[in-house]
């Protein structure tokens, strides 16, 4: 009896401590056949639902880049990573540039309405933008660099006006569609109510948890969240039936907050997770050796769609790294197949499959440059003898016979750095360090905590880290231009707290001219020539070098409950965005139950 009472007390105490936040009456037991479970998108408790907030930690609801998460809040357009196109969501038809190329007009889908039944209008879009600018949110501060104003022409038409340069052209035409496809829409009335409640106080406005925020997405029905999970319920009155022809298949989307990758992986293998946005090492063993109904977007290596390029950045504040021979020797000697095997367990395309440039593995980005023009510059790695010859030729030799080369009379000692606990990155740095040994350059690994790592490498004058990792590239309307900018732009040189690009302080005025020219160039041949030249310079000067390709979102699914997930070459053509982001959300509508 005492034991039972203790158990009851324990359970009640925990129940009270959970004190979840719920919008409505989600059942206490989620029917498995109606629920799609996620892992790897959300870590830790949800902080806020406020799209203007500084730190929502609500990744299942507010996340993604150009391919924005659109299951709760919706954007005007959805980005498709596969074909590099925008698809209308709240919008109707394509965005239309005016003849002067200074503004974009977007029509709102007349069927669109919020979860409170109110229609989505151009005024809502304007109110969202104005609130971002007024309250100086990240979106507002960053976006107003490129967008001067957003105006409603009528209820169904909104115009985005570009910030113009001295020549009367947009300072960056690529940024307008990029901003538009990331703008999450809530209602003007809700914003006005919060505005009044906050009384003009910026922090009060941004820090409001916004439990009652209005949204238009398919899962803006109701929600439950506590310290352990979040559950979104489908809005069965969702307007998008007019767009998609039906409601998305799962009634509930749920995400358990796993402590780490290992716990998330165990749950995936146990069938408690359907969609895993985690790096699951040796993913193929789940189906080949364990016989589990688990699959990835691509059946064979590289299994995932490589959209970003984790790279080794050379710190050019360190004199020896200003020697091109040293940079090139290390880069061509690295065993990239070993990195792919050790760090990515073959979930990266090899550099034989997708030769290095600055662009991701999608057809759209690969078509941006002339492959033949740069093929002599694209090394595949493991060229130890070539690396040694380069160093010998540059006079960087081992003169005292200790096995290590010297530079200006001193033994070369470099470190290879990435944050502690980022196991795939650490495995890459180990391979880079091992390469050093083979060519007589001492490279030691160092793994500080992430907070220390960011503090050091974002200082433009730092000399503590010699070779360190950062990701270059991505997917969205500003890519692949943005990849070139991240890798080589002079605008970042000398910038404090620089998390945006060119962390190694590479200077090349000609590259800056190319970076300035690309957004203003519409002629395709000219554009291709510019991209090709940028790649040539990158592969010649080697301010950094790619170590692998990596997806923006890992996409591994368990098909024990749901099936018909996106697969490469299938009839639907949805990108592997975990069924939540950009155009990939369409896959939610095609899911089928294994046992209906």
């Amino acid at each position, binding site marked *: 009896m005492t034991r039972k009472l203790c158990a009851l007390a324990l359970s009640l105490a925990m129940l009270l401590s959970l004190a979840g936040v719920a919008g409505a009456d989600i059942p206490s037991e989620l029917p498995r056949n109606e629920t799609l479970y996620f892992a790897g998108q959300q870590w830790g408790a949800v*902080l806020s639902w406020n799209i203007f907030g500084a730190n929502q930690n609500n990744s299942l609801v507010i996340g993604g880049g150009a391919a924005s998460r659109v299951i709760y809040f919706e954007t005007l357009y959805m980005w498709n990573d596969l074909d590099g196109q925008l698809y209308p969501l709240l919008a109707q038809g394509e965005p239309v540039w005016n003849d002067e190329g200074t503004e974009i007009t977007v029509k709102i889908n007349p069927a669109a309405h919020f979860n409170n039944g109110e229609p989505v209008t151009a005024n809502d879009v304007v109110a969202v933008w104005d609130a971002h600018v007024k309250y100086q949110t990240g979106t507002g501060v960053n976006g107003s660099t490129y967008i001067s104003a957003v105006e409603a022409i009528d209820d169904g038409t909104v115009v985005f006006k570009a910030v113009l340069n001295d020549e009367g052209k947009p300072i960056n035409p690529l940024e307008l569609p990029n901003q538009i496809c990331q703008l999450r829409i809530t209602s003007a009335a809700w914003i006005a109510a919060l505005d009044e409640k906050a009384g003009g106080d910026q922090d009060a406005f941004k820090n409001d948890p916004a439990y009652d925020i209005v949204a238009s997405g398919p899962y803006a029905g109701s929600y439950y969240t506590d310290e352990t999970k979040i559950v979104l319920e489908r809005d069965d009155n969702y307007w998008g039936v007019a767009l998609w022809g039906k409601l998305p298949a799962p009634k509930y989307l749920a995400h358990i907050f796993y402590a780490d990758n290992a716990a998330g992986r165990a749950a995936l293998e146990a069938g408690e997770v359907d969609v895993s946005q985690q790096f699951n090492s040796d993913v193929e063993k789940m189906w080949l050796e364990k016989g589990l109904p688990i699959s990835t977007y691509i059946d064979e290596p590289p299994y995932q769609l490589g959209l970003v390029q984790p790279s080794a950045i050379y710190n050019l504040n360190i004199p020896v790294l200003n020697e091109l021979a040293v940079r090139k020797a290390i880069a061509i000697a690295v065993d990239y197949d070993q990195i792919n095997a050790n760090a990515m367990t073959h979930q990266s395309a090899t550099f034989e499959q997708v030769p290095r440039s600055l662009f991701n593995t999608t057809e759209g980005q690969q078509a941006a440059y002339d492959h033949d023009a740069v093929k002599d510059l694209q090394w595949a790695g493991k060229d130890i003898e070539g690396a040694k010859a380069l160093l010998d030729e540059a006079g960087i030799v081992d003169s005292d016979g200790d096995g290590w080369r010297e530079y200006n009379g001193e033994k070369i000692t470099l470190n290879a750095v990435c944050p502690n606990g980022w196991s795939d990155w650490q495995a890459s740095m180990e391979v880079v360090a091992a390469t050093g040994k083979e060519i007589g350059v001492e490279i030691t690994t160092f793994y500080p905590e992430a907070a220390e790592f960011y503090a050091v490498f974002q200082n433009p004058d730092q000399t503590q880290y010699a070779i360190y990792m950062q990701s270059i590239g991505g997917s969205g309307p500003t890519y692949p231009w943005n990849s070139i900018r991240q890798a080589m732009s002079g605008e970042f040189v000398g910038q404090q707290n620089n998390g945006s690009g060119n962390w190694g302080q590479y200077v090349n005025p000609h590259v800056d001219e190319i970076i300035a020219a690309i957004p203003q160039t519409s002629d395709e041949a000219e554009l291709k020539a510019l991209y090709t030249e940028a790649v040539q310079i990158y592969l010649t000067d080697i301010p950094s070098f790619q170590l692998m390709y990596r997806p923006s979102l890992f996409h591994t699914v368990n098909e024990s409950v749901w099936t018909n997930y996106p697969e490469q070459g299938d009839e639907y053509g949805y990108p592997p965005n975990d069924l939540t982001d950009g155009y990939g959300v369409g896959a939610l509508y095609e899911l089928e139950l294994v046992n209906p």
Partner: protein
Amino acid sequence: MKGYRKYFLKKLFWFAITLIAAVILNFALPRMMPSDPIATITQRVTEGMNNQNAVMQIYREYARKFGTDQPMWKQFFIYIGNLLKGDMGVSFQQYPRKVSDIVAASVVWTIALQLPAILVGWMIGNLLGALAAYLRKGFDKALVPISLFISGLPAFGLAVTLLVIFGITLKWLPISGGYSYDMLPSFSWRFIKSVIIHYQMPFWSIVLIAIGGQAIGMRSMSIYELNADYVKYSRFLGVKDRKVVGYVFRNAMLPQVTGLALSIGTMIGGALVAETIFSYPGLGSTIMGGITSADYPLISGVTLIITVMVLTMSFAIEMLYGVIDPRVKAAQSE
């Protein structure tokens, strides 16, 4: 009574001095880490932003909000001023969440897991240790190596072993969470049953380790006491064995009680291993996240709670010793 009052006041004085030192250290130590938490937050929230000036503006905004742009002495006095009002500040990583809210949301899970596990491990371990010392022979020979083995096992290894055997291979117990992944909290027996089932592996992963350590400690103390002169003398006088054993174990318990008090004092720090391996809710993983991201207010807040609890438990034990063992009070008040 006068002697006890002097003893109490002396202990209280040192308690206060230690607390002041601890508050200073709790503030200073996290800030001595070679980190910039603002850079970490800015990196996270500006992902995808292309304008470095905008990124810098956001960095400065966070620095202003969190007061890290102020001189250290000023930050310290703001911290002390807030503490006196019962405000441990706002977490950097979980901004705008207050440290007190973060602790409140997780602490019940931590206490519910740690307190019973510490008490059960302590009781079973001491009982086994005392029995081994008293019974000797086969029981002792079996208990010592088993206890040494279990207490020597890394907590991580034991937890993973339990997970693999009972969770993944036998599928007897759930592998993660505080309650079933397909449930929402409710006042139902199914939910309560789910909580109890999910409790088992994290609980026993802590208890088993505790039993081994406690048993070894208690056995050593008991053997020492059993060979003490007063035991031999009592037996020589013909005092009943039961009575003698009672005294022996009461004396042997004293250091064990201190150990128990300190364990309870530090339990708020959370069972990091159990929480991580079994994705069990609690403060341990929250604190770990705070440390890796240099979340000064969270680290300072939680370490302050731990400090106060340890000091309070130590103080309580000292007071208790003064009552149950007059030798301690006599020695201390001289």
